[in-house]
């Protein structure tokens, strides 16, 4: 993993970021979540009015805030990969910390959002929409926590001068962006669409 | 415990000692379990599946004390036989001319089988817990108890087939077990296998009170423990003398 090769290869030749194993995870996860979302749409189509009224009880401000938090973290992580590639582990490390911090912030905001919904009386058994809401965001939250863990592994990789394998950093980043991507879909389907 | 005299001072003798303790746990708790077995009022003869709900309920209210004594003893001491089977696992892992895949399969099956036995006696105890319960419910608990006690031989059958296979594959110059133990393990498995029928049949030898499901199954199991006790004692003696602890 020489740095020059990576940067020069920017546009001309192709390069699979990370390793193939992580892409199996990401692509498979996209298919699985695709299945969950399609099933959500089917149930929504069966009862659009109930879903729409329930959607109104979600707090769009928190949804947008969380989207922005994840986008910022993705930006940090993408920059961190570039720094790692350019042979600057110090700033790569700093950017990874910032990205992970955003991930933790996402979890905290989500917990707050859930608690307000539960206090307002909307729980998993309220109706189909809220069942989907809690399960989809819950499984996504599981992915976020896993992502924070993976970023921790990236940190360990970057901190050890004898390691610093760029493909490990890339693999972690690929996973993290997938978490972001899934949230974008959840945000569109659960919060925004009418 | 004389075996120890020859090896007591070897650094790894503790390995043999702990195995011996596990081994001797079998006759000690075996006697306790035998008493519990003899004490259960529903084993001589085993309760018939033909009994009506009222008869079953009456059985539990008439014999509450003995049922409780017997089943609480089973509860406390039944799984105490597990260390004995763990000695078999250790000995399977000593077989030199094979991988240890049989031992791990045996271990997994032993744990699952033990869980089932531990569950069955809870059902007996719950059935005896409130004498005033509706007879229908007592019969349901009684059915569950008998079925889970007698029918799930699958784990033990698999264990013995694995033990048999392991002994057949252990064909190096110094096999751990004599060859006949393999034949005997498989014969025990075959003797116990038909008891699975207790889950389905309510009359005949395969019903849970039948000659095959009850007497052959439990007899084969008890005999196996007794025979294996002596076999393992000898095997442990050799392991101690050879001084190749695992």
């Amino acid at each position, binding site marked *: 993993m020489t740095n020059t090769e990576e940067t020069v290869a920017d546009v001309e030749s192709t390069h699979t970021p990370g390793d193939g194993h992580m892409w199996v995870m990401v692509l498979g996860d996209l298919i699985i979540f695709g299945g969950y979302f399609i099933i959500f749409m089917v149930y929504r189509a069966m009862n659009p*009015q109930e879903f729409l009224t329930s959607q109104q009880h979600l707090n769009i401000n928190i949804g947008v805030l969380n989207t922005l938090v994840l986008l910022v973290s*993705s930006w940090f*992580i993408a920059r961190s990969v570039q720094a790692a590639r350019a042979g600057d582990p110090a700033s790569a490390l700093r950017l990874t910390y910032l990205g992970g911090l955003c991930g933790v912030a996402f979890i905290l905001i989500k917990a707050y959002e859930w608690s307000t919904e539960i206090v307002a009386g909307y729980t998993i058994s309220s109706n189909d929409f809220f069942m989907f809401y809690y399960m989809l965001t819950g499984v996504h939250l599981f992915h976020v926590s896993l992502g924070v863990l993976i970023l921790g592994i990236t940190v360990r990789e970057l901190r050890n001068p004898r390691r610093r394998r760029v493909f490990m950093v890339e693999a972690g980043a690929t996973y993290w962006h997938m978490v972001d991507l899934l949230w974008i879909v959840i945000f569109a389907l659960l919060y925004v*669409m009418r | 415990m004389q075996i120890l005299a020859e090896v007591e001072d070897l650094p790894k003798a503790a390995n043999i000692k702990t195995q011996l303790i596990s081994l001797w746990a079998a006759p000690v708790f075996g006697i306790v379990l035998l008493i519990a077995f003899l004490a259960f009022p529903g084993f001589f003869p085993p309760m018939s599946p033909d009994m009506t709900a009222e008869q079953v309920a009456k059985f539990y209210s008439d014999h509450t004390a003995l049922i409780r004594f017997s089943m609480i003893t089973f509860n406390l001491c039944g799984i105490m036989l597990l260390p004995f089977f763990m000695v078999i696992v250790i000995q399977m892992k000593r077989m030199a001319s094979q991988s240890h895949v049989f031992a791990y399969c045996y271990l997994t099956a032993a744990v699952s089988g033990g869980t089932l036995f531990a569950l069955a006696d809870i059902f007996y105890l719950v059935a005896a817990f409130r004498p005033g319960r509706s007879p229908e419910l007592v019969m349901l608990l009684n059915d569950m108890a008998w079925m889970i006690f007698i029918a799930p031989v699958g784990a033990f059958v698999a264990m013995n087939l694995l033990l048999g296979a392991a002994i057949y594959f252990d064909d190096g110059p110094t096999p751990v077990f004599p060859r006949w133990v393999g034949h005997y393990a498989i014969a025990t498995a075959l003797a116990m296998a038909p008891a699975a029928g207790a889950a389905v049949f309510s009359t005949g030898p395969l019903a849970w009170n039948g000659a095959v499901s009850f007497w052959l199954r439990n007899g084969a199991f008890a005999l196996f423990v007794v025979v294996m006790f002596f076999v393992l004692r000898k095997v442990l003696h050799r392991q101690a003398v050879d001084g190749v602890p695992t």
Partner: protein
Amino acid sequence: MTATAARTTTYAWIVLSAITIVSWWLAPGHTRGAAAAASVPITVVVVLLALIKGRIIIRYFMEVRTAPPWLKLFTDVWLTIFWAGVLAIYLY
């Protein structure tokens, strides 16, 4: 080179954030008080915006832009089929 890459990433991030703000304005939860009505045009716009967002994340953040063709193809096919499916179910 690194500076260019950094700039591209930042542009991608700006576009994504801008789309998110627009979505905020479209959402039914935003109509304070009044009941939201189903709206085909809004939903179509939302789906298109989400599709664009997803593709930007895949191409620029996940760096599929410079990845082998099969990966580009797979992700594009997934995006297309998925969002087309969502839209088809919605409109049906």
